[in-house]
């Protein structure tokens, strides 16, 4: 969708999370390169945040606070393990998500995963990149630097032509910044597309590439000015190898 073809009319429903998948996917793709619509979306998201005040109020049991504080202590003591779920667990979690930002995932990632029966891979361990029986490749991208808790998964189709990146745990960025995927080969870094993440740190990108993705042995994500840069200029947050 061209950048000048705004998705203004779809943004109210997108903010509410009630767009159907195809339209949500179109919005996600458009938002990746449109400052105007991202700013417009933010106003609707803020409006959605206020709707909670219409719900009739209710009070939970007195015991709940004790359980929350105990669970928080437990989570803190086991955080390293909890912060590193296996790739299949993450993919399973991502597939269960139905937040608005996952409309594009529904279109691209789910199709790829279902076709390839990625669940078979669940018993695989260790390597950061795996080739499934179907020929589809799943590349585990690890958080680096200040984003060490972040993670990503790049799924490349069996013919190497198409790819989808999904990320989790990346900090939301100011309006003038976006994440940018780099395709790395022979020391050269080629733009793979720009994306933003939700308040919860989720994001998705349908990867654009001049050459088959399978021809790039390395991948990285950096923080760049909104719209992307010709070459990396900001901090790296994710890294992975084929």
């Amino acid at each position, binding site marked *: 969708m061209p950048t000048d073809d705004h998705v203004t*009319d779809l943004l*109210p*429903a997108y*903010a*509410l*999370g*009630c*767009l*159907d*998948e195809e339209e949500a996917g179109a919005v996600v793709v458009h938002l990746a390169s449109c400052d105007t619509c991202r700013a417009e979306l*933010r*106003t*609707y*998201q*803020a*409006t*959605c*945040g*206020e*709707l*909670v*005040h*219409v*719900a*009739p*109020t*209710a*009070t*939970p*049991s007195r015991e*709940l*606070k004790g*359980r*929350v*504080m105990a*669970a*928080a*202590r437990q*989570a*803190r003591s086991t*955080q390293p393990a*909890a*912060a590193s779920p296996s790739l299949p667990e993450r993919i399973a979690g991502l597939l*269960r*998500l*139905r*937040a608005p930002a996952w409309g594009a995932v529904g279109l691209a990632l789910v199709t790829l995963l279902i076709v390839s029966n990625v669940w078979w891979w669940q018993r695989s361990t260790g390597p950061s990149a795996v080739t499934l029986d179907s020929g589809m490749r799943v590349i585990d991208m690890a958080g680096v630097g200040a984003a060490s808790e972040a993670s990503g998964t790049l799924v490349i189709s069996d013919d190497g032509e198409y790819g989808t990146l999904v990320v989790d*745990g990346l*900090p*939301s*960025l*100011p309006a003038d910044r976006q994440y940018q995927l780099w395709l790395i080969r022979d020391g050269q870094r080629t733009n793979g597309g720009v994306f933003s993440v939700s*308040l*919860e*740190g989720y994001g998705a990108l349908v990867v654009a590439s001049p050459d088959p993705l399978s021809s790039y042995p390395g991948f990285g994500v950096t923080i760049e000015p909104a719209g992307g840069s010709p070459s990396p200029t900001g901090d790296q947050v994710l890294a992975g190898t084929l």
Partner: protein
Amino acid sequence: MADADYAALDDGTLIRLIALAREDALSELYDRYVRLVFSLALNVVGDASTAEEITQDVFVRVWEHATQYRADLAGVSTWLTSITRHRAIDALRRTGARPDRNAVTWAEVAPAEEPAVGGPEVATTLALESARVRAAVSELSPEQKQVLVLAYFQGLTQSQIAEALGMPLGTVKTRVRLAMQHLRAALGDLALA
């Protein structure tokens, strides 16, 4: 730091202290917003036990991921309710249940009947917000309220709403769009505060 000091801190400061693993800060945030979080979860899933599980999940997630909060993108209450709503709708979809008995109807939206939670300042702020939001929603047509409820509290897509109500998809889309545009205009500075 004494309890009284935490009660005097603003939401953003509490989140920064939570990121530093200060349990008292989490305790204070819980006191301020647990009713908001629990009420939203309950209105989505319709079951108190599940709503408590979701509430616990939300506050533990805040505890673990406080460093990801961006004050320039959303207020703390917006962040909390966004997480809550996604978790609750996810739970609703997993079970396949539709809590019609407890569903919010918004048919009789009136000024807030009681302040919410937390200290006097937070309670007053939440009560004022509630009154303004209720006033704005009360200006919507019954048809617009109906589609908003199904989208916001039950997580239905526009196609599912059209099917559930037996009306053209285009009509649902128009109602959603006009309702949200009205609310955005009516709430304006409040929503972006």
